[in-house]
Structure formats: C-alpha cells, structure tokens
C-alpha cells in the first residue's frame, strides 16, 4: 500500500508527453529567455547569422567561388532546406546533416580546406542557412533510403546508456516537464540548431547538445558528425515534424 502511494506521487510529478502534444523547448523557457530569442536585436545568435551572411558571398578556396556564386540568393535557394535535413547524399551514398553538407560544398565545390565542425565559420554558415527556414515547419525528407537511419536513431534514443543507465527517452519522453534540479526537462525537439546556449556562452550545433546529454549520463559520446548522431538527428527531426524551425534559437 505504501508503495502504491509513492508510485502515484511520482506519476503526478512527471507529466508524460502525450503523442500529438509536442512542445518546443522554447515553450518551457522563462519570459526573459523567450524575449531574448524573439528580439533580433537582443538575440546573440544573430551575430553568427550575420557572419554567415558575409561568408555566403565571400569567394573561397582554389575555385575562388562564393556560396552565392552557385546558390544565388539564399532567401530563395535555401528556404526550407534546414527544415528537411538530414538528407540523402548521393555522392557518399549515405545520410548527411546540414553541417556535413556545407562542409562538402566547401571542400568539393570551393576547393577550400575542410573546416572543423565546431569552427566559428562553419557554425555561422549553418546558422545563416538555417535562418532561411525560420518559422517553417520541420518537413523531413521523404527519401525512403533515410528510413533505416531513422529507425537506427529511434533505437538509440530508447537505449539505456552510461553509468546512470538512462535512455534519451527516459528523460525526453517519460520525464519531460519534470524538474531535474534547476532544469525543466524539455521534450528534446531539435527545432533550433545551431542555437545560442547560455551555458556554452556561444553558438553550437545539435551534435554538441547530444554530447552534453551523453556525458550527463556518463556515457561515452559518439562524437559530432558520427553516424549515430546523424541517425539520432534524423529520428528526432521526424519526431518533431511540423514544429516550426527557430533560427536562431536561444536556450539556457
């Protein structure tokens, strides 16, 4: 009987995320942070977007070509692109995320040296390209070749890992809305990446967020750009389908 009471109390403390009841991490932030994201002048992520806009038109590499020289006006050519990534990369015959795609354009089409995934320039370019999808609904690429990747991502999401023996789903499905000390657990939708995270004091990509959650459960991270993170990303984007892209997002 005592155990019954305890279990019911837990049920109350952790409202589970019902299907169709999806909520961006934006919704659970305090009014100050939401205002910071909403106000372009106050949103620190705009700095990266502006830098990305400058890089977009800057000639680079052996080809001495800018992104714009091939893609033209980003507002036209890049609208909705971030909302449907990861996509299938014909050349590599595998899934690729937006950061990886931009990196390929840089090395293959511009003939420039590869940039590190977390380099300021690559994050800025990704922020600028993603900005062109601001407010558009996440619309996963229907290419059937991505299905296996999403399934792998779903399996990973549900696998318990690390010394704490927790799966992503334990927190982001079952305990979403609960308090983990000071942090309210979000549903974990990748609506706003790259994002300005206060804890980072800077802009970072989704895979950096994954690294944080994996080390939080004391698991060995897979590494930014790894097939595992691309699979998790592909699954999470399909789980978040229809939610609007926030570019740039701000999070605690």
């Amino acid at each position, binding site marked *: 009987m005592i155990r*019954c009471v305890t279990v019911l109390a837990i049920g109350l403390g952790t409202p589970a995320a019902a299907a169709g009841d999806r909520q961006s991490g934006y919704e659970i932030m305090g009014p100050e942070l939401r205002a910071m994201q909403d106000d372009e002048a106050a949103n620190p992520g705009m700095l990266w977007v502006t830098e990305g806009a400058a890089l977009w038109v800057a000639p680079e590499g052996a080809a001495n070509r800018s992104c714009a020289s091939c893609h033209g006006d980003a507002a036209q050519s890049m609208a909705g692109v971030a909302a449907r990534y990861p996509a299938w990369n014909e050349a590599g015959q595998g899934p690729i995320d937006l950061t990886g795609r931009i990196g390929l354009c840089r090395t293959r089409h511009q003939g420039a040296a590869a940039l590190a995934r977390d380099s300021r320039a690559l994050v800025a370019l990704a922020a600028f390209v993603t900005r062109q999808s601001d407010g558009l609904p996440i619309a996963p690429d229907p290419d059937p070749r991505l299905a296996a990747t999403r399934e792998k991502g779903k399996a990973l999401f549900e696998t318990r890992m690390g*010394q704490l023996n927790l799966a992503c789903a*334990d927190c982001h499905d*079952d305990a979403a809305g609960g*308090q*983990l*000390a*000071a942090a309210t657990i979000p549903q974990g939708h990748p609506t706003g990446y790259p994002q300005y995270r206060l804890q980072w004091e800077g802009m970072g990509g989704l895979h950096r967020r994954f690294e944080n959650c994996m080390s939080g459960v004391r*698991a*060995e991270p897979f590494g930014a750009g790894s097939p595992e993170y691309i699979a998790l990303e592909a699954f999470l984007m399909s789980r978040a389908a229809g939610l609007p892209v926030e570019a740039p997002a701000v999070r605690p």
Partner: protein
Amino acid sequence: MARAATCAFVLALAAPAAQAQGLPDPLTDLPGDASRGRAIVLDQPRSLCVLCHAGPFPEIAFQGNIGPDLSGVGDRLTLPELRLRLVDSRRVNPDTIMPPFHSVEGLVRVGTQWKDTTILTAQEVEDVAAFLASLKGPSE
C-alpha cells in the same frame, strides 16, 4: 479505477522480487554515518540525488521532482530496503530510472572515465542509507 489499476500493476511487478526487498547485511564493517550521508546526498555532482529528489534540505535551492520527495522516507522504508534501492533500484523495479549506485551490471557504453566504477562506494552507500533511515516524521 485508474488508481486501483496502477496499484495492482505495481504490486504485481514487485512481487517476484519479494525476496530482494531488502539487503539486511551492511556492505562494510564501518557502520553508516548519517551526517556524512547527508553531506553526500546534498552534494549534487557527487551523488546526483537532488537532481531527481526533493527532501528536507533547506540549503539546496533547486531540487528535482523526478522521484518522490525523500522527507519521511525513514518511516516508509527500512534500512535493508533503503540499502537495496541505493545499491540497485532495478532489483525492486526493473524499469526504474533511478541509477544503480553500487552496481555495474548490464551497463552499456559507460564513459571511459567511469568504466567499471560505481557512482557511490560501499561506504558511501552505508552512510547515505543511515541518513535516509534517519529521515522520520513529516517534512520540516
């Protein structure tokens, strides 16, 4: 109705593990020290407890609500029951999200830094169990 169903389900789950409801034998020769246990519980990076639990810890500004409030837990559970839940809560509830604090059984992809170590040592488990057992009466 829903309440009754939940209770029946939970009790059914707990039944097969009945023999494992408690660990009567201390893990160490040195008896648990409740004041050391309190310090461990309140040290969030070390024990993680207050990430998920609230309790009679006025000095902790942010307490979690993923698990039950630990106030009065010494009235609800015996020392052997507390010890078992700390060592490995999966032995009470296979689906628990409370981490196994003194077991490495079945863990996957543990970070190199933590590989083959437990979150708490045997002595820390004894100290924490002694502290929890001392949490009697209503919340302060």
